[in-house]
């Protein structure tokens, strides 16, 4: 039990002697800190001399020494400090620690909470404003580069475009199939209950076809693609930024616009209309299935009615929206990717932001287009 860490204070007329005992190692620091804390008492600093007797220290490490230095730092210069009984090893480490010990300095006063919140609010607004301007310049450059590549089509990286069509379009088919089929089923079911009351079963055709092709299929496809691809684009570009790959590309004369951004934007603008077309077909099929099983509207009747009473324009409007949604998703995904800073946490943060932004703007754009078209009487 000799190794019990301890400090014994021996007070004589002018001298305070601190006898340091036992293991001054990392496990015992808390205990020792409490004991040493008694030194802080004002009275003790009136001694002319304070002696640290280290002769009974058995084991030590840098934290034991830091503890001693921590208290020495607080002793006013009117006290003389002496250290005795240090073994050679101990002294060597002590000197090394002392030379590197941080000087004491005034603690920064705590800030007013209201002030701090105001500051944060201001920061948020400024950041938002900055992001907006950066985004506009990103879109500006994107447009410029996009037009450029139509003037010089040999600059387009067709392989990369195809790769992104495969990855973001083709690979999304299974999930798009599932969601749009279910959407078709849901619309038809919901409608079936109401229509049956009026005996207007056949109107299920208009209901399913128009709402699916004009609104729901494009919107849901875009949302699914936003979830899959906006996040992927952001993370890919962000990690390339962190590993300096983008800088390496630049120095080798490969423009990140041509190599990274444009293929993704073109890829989605091409694949989204195709996906929407697929989703149209599948959701109508879903609706047809429900119509046939619960409303006694057979597949033939359904298709016949579609021919005669559903305008093609709904279908076309849906398809026209698709590349716009594709542009939104790809642009936001890439933009957020370039915003990722040099730390891993921001990968997660911006990936989330990118998906949320992409979905929001897809829905917002859909609303804007709806209002516009209604005003135009389409």
């Amino acid at each position, binding site marked *: 039990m000799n190794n019990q860490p301890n400090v014994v204070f021996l007070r004589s007329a002018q001298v305070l002697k601190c006898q340091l005992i036992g293991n001054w*190692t*990392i*496990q015992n*620091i*808390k205990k020792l*800190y409490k004991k040493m804390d008694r030194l802080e008492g004002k009275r003790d600093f009136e001694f002319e001399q304070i002696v640290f007797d280290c002769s009974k220290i058995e084991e030590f*490490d*840098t*934290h034991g020494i*830091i*503890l001693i*230095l*921590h208290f020495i730092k607080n002793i006013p210069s009117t006290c003389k400090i002496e250290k005795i009984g240090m073994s050679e*090893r*101990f002294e*060597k*480490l002590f000197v*090394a*620690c002392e*030379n*590197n*010990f*941080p000087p004491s300095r005034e603690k920064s006063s705590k800030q007013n909470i209201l002030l701090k919140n105001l500051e944060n609010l201001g920061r948020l607004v400024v950041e938002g404003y900055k992001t907006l301007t950066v985004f506009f310049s990103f879109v500006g450059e994107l447009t410029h580069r996009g037009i450029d590549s139509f003037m010089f089509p040999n600059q387009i990286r067709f392989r990369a475009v195809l790769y992104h069509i495969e990855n973001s379009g083709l690979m999304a088919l299974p999930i798009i199939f599932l969601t749009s089929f279910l959407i078709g089923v849901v619309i038809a079911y919901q409608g079936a209950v109401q229509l049956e009351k009026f005996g207007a079963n056949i109107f299920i055709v208009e209901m399913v076809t128009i709402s699916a092709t004009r609104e729901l299929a494009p919107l849901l496809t875009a949302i699914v693609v936003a979830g899959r691809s906006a996040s992927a684009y952001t993370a890919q570009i962000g990690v390339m930024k962190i590993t300096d790959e983008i800088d390496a590309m630049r120095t080798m004369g490969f423009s990140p616009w041509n190599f990274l951004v444009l293929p993704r934007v073109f890829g989605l603008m091409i694949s989204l209309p195709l996906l929407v077309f697929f989703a149209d077909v599948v959701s109508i099929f879903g609706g047809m299935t429900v119509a046939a099983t619960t409303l006694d509207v057979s597949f033939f009747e359904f298709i016949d009615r579609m021919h005669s009473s559903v305008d093609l324009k709904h279908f076309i409007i849906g398809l026209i929206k698709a590349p716009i949604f594709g542009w939104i998703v790809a642009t936001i995904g890439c933009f957020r990717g370039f915003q990722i*800073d*040099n*730390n*891993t*946490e*921001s990968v997660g943060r911006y990936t989330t932001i990118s998906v949320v932004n992409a979905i929001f703007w897809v829905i917002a754009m859909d609303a804007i287009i709806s209002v516009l078209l209604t005003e135009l009487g389409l």
Partner: protein
Amino acid sequence: MIVVKARNIVTRFGDNVIHDGVSFDIKQGEIFGLLGGSGSGKTTLLREMILLQKIAGGELEVLDNSVVGISKENEKKLQSQWGVLFQFGALFTSLNIVENISIALKEYTDIPDKLIFESALMKLSMVGLPEKTAYMYPSELSGGMKKRAGLARALALDPKLLFLDEPTSGLDPKSARGFDELIVMLRQTLGITVVMVTHDKDTIEGVLDRFIILGNKKVIFDGNISELQETTNKELRNFLN
């Protein structure tokens, strides 16, 4: 006392055999070097000792624990006794430097925060970084500075056993010697054992007590610098030149 005991270690990545029968001992209080050409498997061997990589065959004991089938408890105990410096620093990018250094102290000890902070700043200064770097993030540091911050983090818990992967690469010659002195001082005062991968000739000649050279998937040399200089094997003698 033997701190690390390796017997006939075999390592494979798929069909690619990296080590085929590597054996050596590391004694307590030694500064031990792992040497060898690029791609000879030094980092891999180090990773096996710190339980990041499984061995495909042979025996490996670290502080009397066999790394094969080690229990979670023992693993934790081991991890609290060693400090590791990775080849490229491997700092936590979302924490600033002082947080990087103090995170282990905060998690594993009950030391008061004031002392933890002072401890972190002291270790930072010991490895030769100015105080203003304390609040910077890893991405704002140069490669050599990251290395030093990584060493400060490895030293945070006053480990008994220190694993260093190329500690002096990327440092200017003067800081590299400062690094060497720090290691020697810590060994002298705290009696720690140091295992390091290094290509630095001055470190090899001035600091290492003993080292092995890996080559051809095996240990081709085991001894100290004067033994290496006296060996008749020409290939080995040329290793340093």
